[in-house]
């Protein structure tokens, strides 16, 4: 048994390494695609930066200073060469080094995606399962399904504004804007000060959660609908399987059947959904960050594309790609944990 597990671990490791190698050409492809797509788009960064105040001379100066008057292939070669040295340049939109700026934005997006995933699973999984298990109780089934439908029907920007009006403007329970003191949290963890000043750290965490609650609820609730519907249909399918019937015939309690036998099987398709869901949540952050005026990668990316901020957009899309690749890799690895039949070759 021990030997079998060791062989399995080794295969898993090989699989992960192989997948990571595949990531390199994928990233290169993404970077090239983004580079050329950004340059093919009409409207150049200088026009975007100068706007109505653009004079002929200012435009010429700007184009020359940014090196945009060089041939495209020369610019591309320079971009790849600089990227190889981890030099992604300065953002044209806000004059920060791209790497520094993305690293500052990344934690805000990650906590939002993570928190909304928790909300989506926290709401979606129980309602979906309840709806399936209690399908003969129309009150529960229909209530759960209506909640799911509501989530599907309410766009995040609308639901977000609704939450803001009720919980922030009228009841004054949550802050209107901002992402909280996340930079302090990250700095304290990085410097080890978390153990020296635990009180300050908890206050900062609290502040982050306080700012995170409404955006995570808005984004998570709209995505919970998908989780709920998948959980319901999968659960219904699983509950009709022979082994469930056998478990019932053995006289197992319904709770044990649902939690021990059915839930694990429901998790496999759900994991796929969660993998996709992270990609969805990443795009959902654009609207959520806009409505709740939170810092983050999503809105930053849209602004960068609109402003034709080539360095920032290229950097941000590379990071997005890396996150999605990583999440999918994790999901693939987790399949084995939930389904022993999955083997990595």
């Amino acid at each position, binding site marked *: 048994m021990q030997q079998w597990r060791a062989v399995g671990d080794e295969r898993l490791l090989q699989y992960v390494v192989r997948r990571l190698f595949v990531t390199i050409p994928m990233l290169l492809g993404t970077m090239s695609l983004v580079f050329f797509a950004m340059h093919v788009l*009409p409207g150049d960064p200088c026009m*975007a930066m100068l706007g109505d105040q653009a004079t002929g001379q200012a435009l010429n100066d700007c184009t020359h200073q940014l090196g945009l008057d060089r041939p495209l292939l020369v610019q591309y070669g320079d971009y790849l060469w600089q990227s190889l040295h981890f030099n992604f340049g300065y953002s044209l939109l806000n004059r920060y080094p791209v790497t520094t700026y993305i690293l500052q934005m990344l934690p805000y997006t990650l906590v939002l995606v993570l928190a909304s995933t928790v909300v989506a699973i926290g709401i979606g999984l129980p309602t979906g399962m309840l709806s399936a298990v209690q399908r003969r109780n129309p009150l529960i089934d229909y209530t759960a399904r209506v909640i799911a439908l509501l989530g599907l029907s309410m766009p995040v920007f609308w639901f977000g504004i609704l939450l803001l009006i009720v919980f922030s403007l009228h009841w004054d329970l949550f802050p209107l804007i901002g992402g909280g003191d996340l930079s302090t949290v990250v700095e304290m963890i990085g410097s080890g000060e978390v153990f020296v000043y635990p009180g300050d750290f908890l206050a900062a965490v609290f502040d982050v959660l306080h700012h995170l609650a409404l955006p995570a609820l808005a984004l998570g609730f709209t995505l919970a609908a998908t989780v709920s519907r998948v959980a319901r249909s999968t659960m219904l399918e699983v509950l009709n399987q022979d082994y469930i019937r056998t478990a019932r015939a053995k006289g197992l309690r319904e709770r044990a059947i649902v939690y021990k036998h059915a839930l694990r099987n429901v998790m496999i398709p759900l994991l796929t959904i969660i993998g996709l869901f992270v990609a969805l949540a990443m795009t959902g952050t654009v609207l959520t960050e806009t409505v709740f005026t939170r810092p983050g990668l999503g809105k930053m990316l849209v602004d960068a594309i609109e402003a034709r901020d080539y360095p920032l957009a290229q950097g941000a899309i590379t990071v997005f790609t890396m996150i999605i690749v990583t999440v999918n890799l994790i999901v693939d690895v987790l399949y084995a944990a939930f389904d022993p039949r999955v083997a990595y070759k």
Partner: protein
Amino acid sequence: MDRSLWWRCGIVILAVCMSMAVWQPSPAHAARKKILKIAAKEPDTLDPHSSTIGQTQAIVRFLYRGLTRFAIKDGKVTTAEVEPDLAESWTVSDDGTVWTFKLRKGVQFHHNFGEMTAEDVKFSFERQLHHAKGTRFAENLSPIREITVLDPLTVQITLKEFDPVFPLRMVGYQQGYIVSKKAVEQYGDNYAWNPVGTGPFYFDRHTPREKVILKANSQYYFGRPQIDEIEWFDVPEDATKLIGLEKGTFDLIYPEIVTADMVAQVEKMGAVLDKRGPGGQERIYINMTQPPFDDIRVRQAFMHAIDRQAIKDTLYPGALATLADSPLPPGYFGHLAVEMPEYDPDLAKKLLAQAGHPDGLTIDNYFISKSFFYPKVAVLVQEQLKKVGINVNVQLVEHATYHENIRKNLNPFVLYGGTRLTDADVWFGLFFDSSQIPDPATGNKGTNFAHYKGIDDLIAQGRREHDQSKRAALYHEAQRRIMRDAVCLPLTDVPSIWARNPKRVSTPFNPDYGEFALHYSYNYPEMLKILD
């Protein structure tokens, strides 16, 4: 996990959620300090020579000052005259080409970067004249031939030729701000977020996409501001700004577009709108070289087909804007109210028929920016033109694309906005001088979208004229010619508008045009006061 444990976990989570909900930051800290909270978009840099974006120009006014400043006359801030600021006094040679500025003594740069000297002044202008990376305003300083430091507090600027606009170029705005030479050299590319000026507030810190914090400069030479701290929040959405103003999260908001709905909401919550001229003029340039507009009768027909009053009333009801009365906005030196074409669709049809278009005409692929006022005005213009038989097929594009396309002469008529230095010479020089005709073949990206050559002589004469009244007369004639030749239809003069909570913040100037400013913000932010 047994059932009681589930319950306990549930109660703990609920307690955390409840405490999260009721927890608010302690108001004691805020009460002790006088903090002004502003909701606007995030500036793209704090280097004053590097950005033309509204919010950046607004915030840098808090940090930097120039040799001169817009004069306060009879309790109003004007943009026509200047008074000493960092320069205590100045003299000018008889031919008007040598300006000698005596600097104020003891002015300190922020963050202990030392006393401001003539070297800093020379450096501030020369970095732009030498097209240092990121700088944008070399053109505004182009009359300068040489800058000489006579002593640490005296700087002499020699011009290529007499420039009537020179005192305005030295005002604390865009190219006129004085930066610390030492700081720019020390920070290099990172100066954008390590600004060092001499203004009433100094930069404290920036949390990207969240806020910029400025603090009162206790060494400010006109006295420390009453406000201790400025929190400039990055709030892109106008709806959020309004909620924040009502809730008290913000004291001042800088809306992207002021609509009638917004005004109603602002009034309902008891806030006031601070309107500052000259703002931006929204106008249409007609390319007189492109058929069918190369025929003046078609251009006249176009102008008579547009109901400017209806556009103003629809988009800017009440005092939100004024109907433009000249191709040079009020508040600019040389402005004269001239006769505008009447709205007369019948006359428009008649003129079109005379020009050989009895059945009207169609303009395909008319590009318009999807941002700011552009799409709203374009839709109204499209509807009005349709009534006289001019069909315009509009294509919405991003703002940068729009600017690119109009410089490729893809639009036969061009909708435009924006401000410039407040003198007819600057305005006409950019929008009506033949040297600024955009031409993709030569790479000229100028802004004379009408391709007009009719006032070159007047602009040139104005630049040589020392007598201000004669200079004004030349520009009056220029305005008449522009309208006579039907190359520009001025629509509205839209002030720069901020909404203010008057119970929290006061300004010494009348909210209704008590200030003229080019900064999209308060000209003298140090005069704002937090009310107890």
